[in-house]
């Protein structure tokens, strides 16, 4: 049944919604409560791909941070994919995500990357303006997501899975 298994790490600042995105994707749930992640929470999900063998994602939801320490680098080891997460309502979280991406390069140089700008349902409060996103899209795939409504979540993960399978 299964094709390969791939390790996927979520990276992003505190409270941007990493855990919420995983909960939405793996368990189809959402909670307004903010329980900050301590260390790592690992989940896994089989992703069906049209016309191809399914891919299993082992998803490492790493505690939010704006810089990678030794432990964080350890967590990243062997990751085939990174999902950067930023919070659209906090512009600084986007900077953190990009910082993290650059720091992660030394550990996982070959990992594929996707950026999720989260909390799309709060679009009115967004600080990240469209021109920035347009600029970003030239460098890497960017998805506007909402863990609350589920919008864009499946697409972001499916994009990663598809690129991993190929």
């Amino acid at each position, binding site marked *: 049944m299964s094709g390969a*298994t791939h*390790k996927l790490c979520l990276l992003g600042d505190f409270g941007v919604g990493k855990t919420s995105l995983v909960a939405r994707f793996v368990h189809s749930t959402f909670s307004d409560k903010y329980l900050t992640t301590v260390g790592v929470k690992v989940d896994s999900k089989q992703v069906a791909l049209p016309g191809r063998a399914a891919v299993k994602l082992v998803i490492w939801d790493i505690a939010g941070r704006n810089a990678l320490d030794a*432990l964080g680098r350890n967590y990243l080891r*062997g990751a085939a994919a990174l999902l950067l997460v930023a919070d659209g309502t906090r512009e600084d979280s*986007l900077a953190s995500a990009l910082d993290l991406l650059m720091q992660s*390069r030394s550990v996982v140089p070959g990992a594929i990357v996707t950026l999720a700008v989260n909390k799309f349902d709060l679009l009115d409060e967004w600080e990240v303006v469209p021109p920035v996103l347009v600029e970003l899209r030239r460098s*890497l795939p960017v998805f506007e997501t909402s863990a609350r409504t589920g919008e864009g979540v499946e697409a972001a993960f499916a994009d990663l899975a598809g*690129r991993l399978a190929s």
Partner: protein
Amino acid sequence: MGTSGSGQSPIAPADSVARPAPDAGPLERLRELLLAPEVRALVEVRGRLADLEASQQALARRLPGALEALQGEAETRRMAAALSAPVAQALGTAVRTRRQLLVDALFPVIGPLIRKSIAEALRNLVADLNAAIESSFTLRGLKWRIEAWRAGVPYAEVVLKHRLAYRIDHVFLIERASGRVLWHAAAPELAALDADAIAGMLTALGDFVQDSVGAGEGGGNLESATVGEHLVWIASGPAANLACFMRGAPPERLRSRLQERLEEVHARCADGWPEQGRPLPEWDGLLQPSALLSAGDAAAPATPPARLWPWILLLGLTACGLVAWLLGNHVWDTRIQALRARLAAQPGMIVGAIDSRPWRSLTVHGLIDPDAPPLDAGVVAAGLGGVVPTLALDGYVSTDDAVVARRAARLLAPPATVTLGVQQGVLRLEGSAPGAWLAAARERAGWIAGVARVDLAVQPQADPAAAALLELRGLARELEDIEVPFTEGDAPGPGADAQLAAIVERARRARVLAGQAGVDLVLESVGSNDETGGVEINRRVRAQRAQWLATALAARGIDGVRSTDVGSGRHRSAWLRLAIGDVP
């Protein structure tokens, strides 16, 4: 790949934000785009920082003095409240960054605590062992005993082996770096679980532990973890870890076995690890829970055919039952013999048949003399396990000396001054007794059943009544001769006073003696005369003289004297006569 090649360029130093390198990639340009306003803010902040530093140095100089100047409880308390949060946080930071310092400081406290908990654990182990050894007469205990006997090892060792039973639920071979599952096996009956997530968490946990303990590469590996009854042991290798999930108490040798197996896996993959999702077939043989369990236990003795032991057990139990039954009967029989001996030793008793059902009921048939000493119920029932014997006894006359003595005592009722003993049919009575009892005893003793001869050595006791009567009679004789002389008519002659005094003395004594002897006593004053004078005159004179004596005695305290005249006279005199009544 989603990122362009420039994504792999080295991380730019912070300064490069202000002075972008000419060949900066698109990501660097993005950073500049995003951060330009922040750089301006940064310059401003630097200026403010310098001011702050200056004022901070001044504060640092003043702070100790200010703290020392704290006075009064309220002030101190406020300070403590204000400091509690930062101090707690500082402690937290210290735990993370200055661990060794804290460990050194806490060591003296932790040492005793650890020792105490070890002692506790040991105590529990001993309690476990004791329980097991005590329960050795349960079915399982018996089985273990048989096992120990067959294997020729101490029982306690077998108990320990079974008490330390454990089972392996899962075995994971995990790629060390990524935490991916290379191979996984579970005990057959277990529900499926998310092996990838578990292996990932385990790896993350290992990373976390290594990072926090901070002992550098190789040191501080996560080796085991417990959650409730579940236990994880992890053997670490350079490329992969082996994690074993268990329940129970595995032996320490399993740990080295895990390490050996992991080394073997590494050795076989020295030329490269298989592609992900393609485990090597020989891993099954090396790492399956069953393969980990059985190895090394081969040294254990071959177990007997499984179906044999119930029979051995049954046979053993039957034999035990038989032995117990025989033993019980034997014990009962010896107790009955003892009872027979005890009863036979009783005087005045002849023991016949003893009917009994072991440990249930018991009837003693036999003969008993009514004069036999009563049986002590305790003596009779001793050692019979609560069975109360029924006595079916008929009467007979015993010639046993002890019984004859009791019979003689009952029939003769000797006074306390007489001792009574029987020896070989000879009844010996000793001491002293009133004559009346002595006379009766002399008459009856020879008739008592079982008495062949009587040895009567009893002194008769003096009877105070008889003695008193005897003396009284003597007094009566004396008084007949003590006469009060008269000259003419009722005029007392010379020496009359002395005679009168002698009479008074004896009359008093006589009344006392009569009381002691229990007889009636009448005092009569008697008058007499000589041959001269006429009959009528003489009779009158005699009455006068008797009356004179009665009056004189009454004047001296002896009243109730009857005066009488006697027909034939002797002298011109009067005397006192004692009329003694019949002995009662």
